[in-house]
């Protein structure tokens, strides 16, 4: 019984509960080595791009003599076509891409989960309507549309870009969520909860939603990668304003300034690609840990 009272002491303070939950989640993440490594990579990249700029100033000095230099002590990732250090550009150029990527993922996941579960739960015309909407969005060729919209609307705002990507990328997850809820709500334990008169909120938030949390979290990380590719793609094509310094702009410049045709510029081109790829790898690897966090059945030797 000692364990139960011990646990309930934590419950008394919200902070205590949060910390305990956070600690045990970290412990679960650490069970899977690949997953934990991915988690560390993602955390590192987020820290470097969001906190790093405070400590490392953006190198804006043009040095004609230093064009396309290979890595050295003073320029750990070499220099670009104007002799500026690439490392400082990488550090400063991550934040906009990551912000848009995560924001767009939040938007698309929220739309998907809300419409999907609502449709499955309510059924009838609501469900038909949402499914129809999803099918419509799904049939639109997304990148061309993004391109057209980006041309028509002035996308000089990060949030507008994120909103646009989020509004287009939800249907796949919405259909998956709908299918999951449809199957979960027929489970025997949900029927038992009905017989016990535990109420709809309990059934939705305690019995059904937690069973989808892992799935949704994983899809969220995938949505982040998709959105990042989308925004990088748009930037590369020059459809999003180039006012800022970011990984996409770096690639665009590499393209427009002919760096892609020069053998010397390999470090300059590879740096943003590597940064993006590393981040995506981190997210995908992290999924391994996420499945274990959300599914007690996978916690081996627990």
């Amino acid at each position, binding site marked *: 019984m000692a364990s139960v009272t011990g646990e*309930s002491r934590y419950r008394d303070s919200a902070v205590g509960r949060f910390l305990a939950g956070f600690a045990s989640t970290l412990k679960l993440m650490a069970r899977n080595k690949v997953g934990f490594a991915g988690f560390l990579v993602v955390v590192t990249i987020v820290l470097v791009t969001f906190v790093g700029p405070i400590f490392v100033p953006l190198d804006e000095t043009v040095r004609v003599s230093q064009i396309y230099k290979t890595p050295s002590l003073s320029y750990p990732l070499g220099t670009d076509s104007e002799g500026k250090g690439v490392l400082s550009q990488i550090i400063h150029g991550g934040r906009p891409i990551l912000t848009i990527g995560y924001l767009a993922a939040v938007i698309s996941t929220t739309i998907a989960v809300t419409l999907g579960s609502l449709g499955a739960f309510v059924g009838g015309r609501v469900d038909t309507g949402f499914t129809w909407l999803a099918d419509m969005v799904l049939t639109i060729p997304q990148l061309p549309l993004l391109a057209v919209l980006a041309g028509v609307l002035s996308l000089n705002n990060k949030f507008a870009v994120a909103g646009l990507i989020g509004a287009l990328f939800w249907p796949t997850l919405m259909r998956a969520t709908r299918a999951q809820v449809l199957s979960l709500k027929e489970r*025997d334990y949900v029927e038992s909860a009905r*017989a*016990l008169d*535990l109420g709809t909120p309990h059934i939705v938030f305690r*019995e059904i939603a*937690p069973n989808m949390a892992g799935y949704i979290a994983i899809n969220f990380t995938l949505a982040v990668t998709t959105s990042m590719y989308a925004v990088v793609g748009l930037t590369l094509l020059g459809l999003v304003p180039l006012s800022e310094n970011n990984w996409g702009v770096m690639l665009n410049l590499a393209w427009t300034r002919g760096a892609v045709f020069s053998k010397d510029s390999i470090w300059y081109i590879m740096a943003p690609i590597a940064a993006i790829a590393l981040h995506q790898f981190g997210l995908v690897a992290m999924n391994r840990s996420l499945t274990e966090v959300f599914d*007690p059945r996978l916690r081996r030797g627990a």
Partner: protein
Amino acid sequence: MSGTPIELEHASRFYGSGSQQVRAVDDVSFTIEPGETLCLVGESGCGKSTTGRMMAGLLEPSEGRVLYGGKDVGKLPQEEKKRFRRAVQIIHQDPYASLNPIRNVTQILSAPLRRHKLTKSRSELGTKLRELLETVGLTPPEEFLRKHPHELSGGQRQRVSVARALTVNPEVIVADEPVSMVDVSLRIGLLNMLLKLQQDLGVAFLFITHDLAVAKHFSWEGRIGVMYLGRMVELGSTQRLVREPVHPYTRALISALPEADPELTRHKERLRLRSPDIPSLLNLPAGCPFHPRCPKYEEGLCDTDRPAEDAVALDGHLAACYVAARELGQGDRIPESSRTAGAEARRRTA
């Protein structure tokens, strides 16, 4: 425990519509008295589970009524409806699907206690949880409180399901094949635990099973109802039904069941069916649904009218068979149309 009888009155449940309509349960009536045991026995698709779900208020009858203390459940005021809801609990067949995999035993059992304010303090909740686990034979309870379903065996999961049903002090437990997916060596332990519950707490059971031998063991002092293609074909006290079955379908089931005794099972009298195949619910034969397979089939008599549930009625023992009714001297219960059709057919063959 307070006792309120629950009754199914001409209850039916249909699925689909038009020519695709399936009558999963067709005009079934019976009452569960406080503290009694009634076993529903039948093969897959006979409607026994659907009947159980109607009894538990989880499905509404398409026709007919469910009566709780004589009152139509569909028309009960909100508060009383909730009381009925809680009065009937259900235990499922599949121990791997009946518990939410991500909730541990404490969470599973405390949700209903909290929701219905059945325990007042945290310490009372702890005591109640331990008490429940002990009741269902999960001892020592401390060992199980923090466990998730995947850390329990099939038998233990079923016990947690029973404990969960007991949280709200039910009057009736609908147990839908609770032991059929549990290992042989653990089955009887589970059944005996349920029997003890019934003696100690006075809970009534609607026990659904495909296995007559299990039904006999579980409800020796109670009743058995045999269902076939959505209908109740025989209903009576277990001892009588097992010893002197009236309906040919019940007889066929008894004679077909293999027994764990080589001598007995190899020399059992077998009833030869006219056809081994069960008709589809979509295309039910006219008259008695069993007539295409029945060894006692008589042209005219069996395929004209559908026999009423109480075509044979002997001191509360009911069977839906006209041939048996005639043989047992209850020929007057056969409707005119079937009687004449039968007589005509006999004359033609003679």
